[in-house]
């Protein structure tokens, strides 16, 4: 069916805004031309993609305002086709566009706000797991502790920020005027506790420990990393304290020895 394939390719080309001969294969009627008929599809294509981006990035939209957000969406649609069977994943490259293309790349907090929104969107329907219970820690033999490794809930994301993007995101979520932009390093986490997405800030110490644990580091390696912050005597207690916190907050799926 080379004719059918060629027809589909030129129809898709028309939707994607490319030069396309497809109009010659469509019938006009007295009331509506072939071009007008095709444009119903071309207009619908962009509208649907825009709806998908808008539903994913409501806070970013609010922060940028309608005009700039419209520009962002038009750029995005020109740059990215949809390879997915669901619109749920269409907007996945928005951070790349924001980081790499002017005028958006000149406003550095935009990437951070978008990353926060994506972390929440992804946490909503990421894979379930039966999270660990704190009592399971008692089953670990003392000699096994240094080699203990953790497997985290798939929704858990550590979000390092160079600006006060999280307070800005929070104000936008509550439809309040966001605070003035300031440069301040901080780390946040987003995860889903049972069916509800959560977030909180991390201390520098906990951020170091969690990054090490999420990268597959053992309990021994986490302790070693924490020596940057604590003395040798208190370090294991601190590490255990973090571990208990993560388990109680239902971030940990499994523990392996």
């Amino acid at each position, binding site marked *: *069916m080379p*004719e*059918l*394939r060629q*027809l*589909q*390719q030129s*129809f*898709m080309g028309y*939707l*994607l805004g490319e030069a396309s001969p497809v109009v*010659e*294969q*469509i*019938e006009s*009627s007295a*009331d*509506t031309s*072939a071009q*007008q*008929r*095709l444009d*119903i*599809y071309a207009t*619908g*294509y962009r509208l*649907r*993609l825009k709806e*998908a981006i808008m539903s994913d990035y409501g806070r970013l939209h609010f922060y940028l305002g309608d005009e700039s957000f419209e520009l962002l969406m038009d750029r995005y649609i020109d740059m990215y*086709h*949809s*390879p*997915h*069977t*669901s*619109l*749920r994943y*269409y907007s996945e490259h928005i951070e790349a566009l924001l980081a790499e293309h002017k005028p958006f790349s000149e406003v550095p907090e935009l990437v951070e706000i978008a990353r926060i929104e994506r972390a929440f969107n992804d*946490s*909503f*329907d*990421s*894979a*379930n797991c039966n999270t660990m219970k704190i009592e399971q820690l008692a089953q670990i033999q003392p000699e096994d502790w240094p080699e203990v490794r953790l497997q985290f809930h*798939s*929704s858990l994301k550590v979000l390092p920020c160079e600006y006060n993007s999280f307070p800005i995101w929070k104000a936008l979520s509550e439809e309040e005027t966001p605070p003035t932009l300031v440069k301040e390093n901080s780390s946040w986490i987003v995860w*889903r506790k049972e*069916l509800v997405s959560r977030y909180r800030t991390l201390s520098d110490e906990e951020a170091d420990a969690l990054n090490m644990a999420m990268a597959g580091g053992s309990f021994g390696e986490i302790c070693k990393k924490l020596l940057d912050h604590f003395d040798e005597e208190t370090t294991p207690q601190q590490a255990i304290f973090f571990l208990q916190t993560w388990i109680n907050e239902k971030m940990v799926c499994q523990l392996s020895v």
Partner: protein
Amino acid sequence: MTRPFLGFGLGLRTEHYQYVLDNKPAVDWFEILSENYMVPGGKPLANLDLIRADYPMVMHGVSLSIGSTDPLNKKYLKDLKELAQRVEPHWISDHLCWTSVDGNNSHDLLPLPYNEVTINHIADRIKQVQDYLGRQILMENLSSYVTYNDSEMSEWEFLNEIVKRADSLVLLDINNIFVSAHNHHFEPIDYIRGIDIDRVMQFHLAGHSYSGEMIIDTHDHDVCDPVWTLYAEALKHFGAVSTMIERDDNIPEFPMLRAELAVAERIAADTLSADMLQIPENRLSGVA
């Protein structure tokens, strides 16, 4: 004629999850949008399981792209089959259209040229899908806005021939017949009379909007009077067919949609005998 009759259903929409869970409204069944639940976990699947425990379901997809000249999407089919194992739907439907080519998805239901080449191509693909899923699937007619020069027959002849060759079934969208009849200048009743009675398993009803001389299938309004009239004609022709209303935009409160479904129930009661509209006792079970 042994067509299973589920009664009168609605499209399950996220806006109504809480209402449905809290009130367990009297609706015979729900149609779910398959792609909304082809996700790893979280709330969508949790709500789906809770609502499935109380209602029969059918699965309706938009991304099978049965008419595409790309290879069948194996990952999509695998996810669809897994979802079907979870939901145990009475049946699975998608559209007689193409949605993607060269891996680019339009996220739209794009029409096909109605000719022998396309019929062969699609009948063969439907057979592959049915073999993989281990069940017959339903093909739905579209609303469309273009006619191709390459078309050699009416849309209903095209649909009929494909489902006959593939031994598949039909989901007849009454609103789409109305919309396409307007846009392409044919008589909707000719469409209805042209479809094999025994292959039709389900009806869709929906609202639409006007754009210039064309009608667009927007699912953002109530079902209009001419579509209700056509629905009554369809019931006369096909007998009792499981019927549901699709609403995807400008979504009203659940009780408003339920009231609209009651209109369909009344029209069916006025058109068919009570005998024909009996819902079998075992309808809560998964198997059709």
